[in-house]
């Protein structure tokens, strides 16, 4: 057989695939690449189920240990960690069937659905922060929306990851406030062009260059989104009077209609009497 370019490319690809000899996994296909490694779809021969297998570029398995400590519905559970014959560390985790957030948004979901997804991401972050873990790389590509609406925040950062430029806080030292910035950037990315100014103000407040004037933590940002969804004033925006009146009218529409009906009835009776 001649060694033409196609054959060489194929050999290169095969050589790059991880050698899973000695593990219980059978490689299927590559499903993504991150800063610290490659994620493959694989089959667990022992339990006869599909899993996601992340093969790290180094022998460090800190990422797996980090995630293994975070048991939360919006954080993908780790099944097992191990070391490949070539010395690289790997870990197996639940294979999420669904779409990445950027792909999910291409289907033009409603504002309510967008905020639901963001709140799930924020809850996962708040949970991790409470355990002293920061994500470091919040971006749409690291959020998965499953077939049944479940939301997962993936690719929990390790020291070497410093985030993706558009979503990275301009902080000298990464902290929970950097994740708050990332969450704000994610919110801004998720908002449609017609988004209400209150939501834009929430994203802006979370993305302030000075960490001291951002939301102090993820729960405070989520609380502001909840206030918006309940038709209340948000912390991030001092709304003009006309907007406050409009919000009041929309929150109390039924009562205003009933009062208008009462006034209409009284006026009609008064008018009929004086005919």
């Amino acid at each position: 057989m001649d060694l033409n370019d196609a054959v060489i490319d194929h050999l290169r690809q095969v050589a790059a695939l991880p050698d899973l000899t000695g593990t219980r996994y059978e490689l299927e296909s590559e499903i993504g690449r991150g800063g610290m490694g490659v994620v493959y779809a694989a089959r667990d021969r022992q339990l006869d189920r599909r899993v996601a297998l992340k093969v790290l570029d180094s022998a460090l398995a800190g990422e797996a240990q980090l995630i293994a400590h975070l048991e939360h519905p919006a954080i993908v559970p780790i099944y097992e960690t191990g070391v490949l014959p070539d010395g690289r560390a790997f870990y197996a985790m639940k294979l999420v069937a669904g779409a990445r957030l950027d792909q999910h948004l291409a289907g033009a979901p409603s504002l309510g659905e967008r905020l639901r997804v963001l709140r799930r991401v924020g809850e996962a972050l708040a949970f991790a922060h409470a355990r002293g873990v920061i994500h470091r790389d919040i971006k749409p590509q690291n959020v998965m929306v499953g077939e049944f609406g479940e939301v997962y925040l993936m690719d929990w950062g390790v020291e070497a990851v410093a985030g993706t430029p558009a979503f990275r806080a301009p902080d000298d030292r990464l902290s929970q406030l950097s994740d708050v910035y990332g969450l704000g950037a994610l919110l801004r990315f998720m908002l449609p062009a017609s988004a209400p100014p209150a939501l834009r103000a929430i994203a802006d407040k979370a993305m302030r260059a000075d960490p001291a004037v951002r939301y102090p933590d993820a729960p405070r940002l989520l609380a502001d989104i909840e206030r918006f969804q309940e038709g209340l004033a948000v912390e991030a925006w001092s709304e003009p009077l006309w907007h406050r009146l409009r919000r009041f009218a929309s929150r109390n529409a039924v009562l205003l209609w009933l009062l208008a009906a009462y006034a209409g009835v009284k006026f009609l009776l008064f008018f009929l009497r004086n005919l």
Partner: protein
Amino acid sequence: MNKILAGLLFGLILGAIDGATAWFYPETHSMIGGILVGSSIKGMLVGLLSGWFAHKVQSTKWGIALGATLGLLFAFLVVLMQHEHYLAIMMPGFVTGAIIGFLTQRTGAPSLAAKREA
């Protein structure tokens, strides 16, 4: 606040306001005190029953419907006593009842069973 208490309070206030609008009709000036008291009691009865319903069932739609029906019923009972001003008493009574029914649904704490059903 308790829903039944809230109903009594809203019924008293709205009933009194509804009764006070009779002032716009000069022929009622001599009996405005009686109208105010009667209208307040009517409002409180609607509020009491609407509040009790709101405590049991958490539904704005059904709260408004029940309040309006009770308002109409009590206004009809008032009209039966004097056989005149049917529209002038029953129509505002209907709408006032609806407002009381709405307000009792929106304020106060419902029963645990009502919360579970909602």
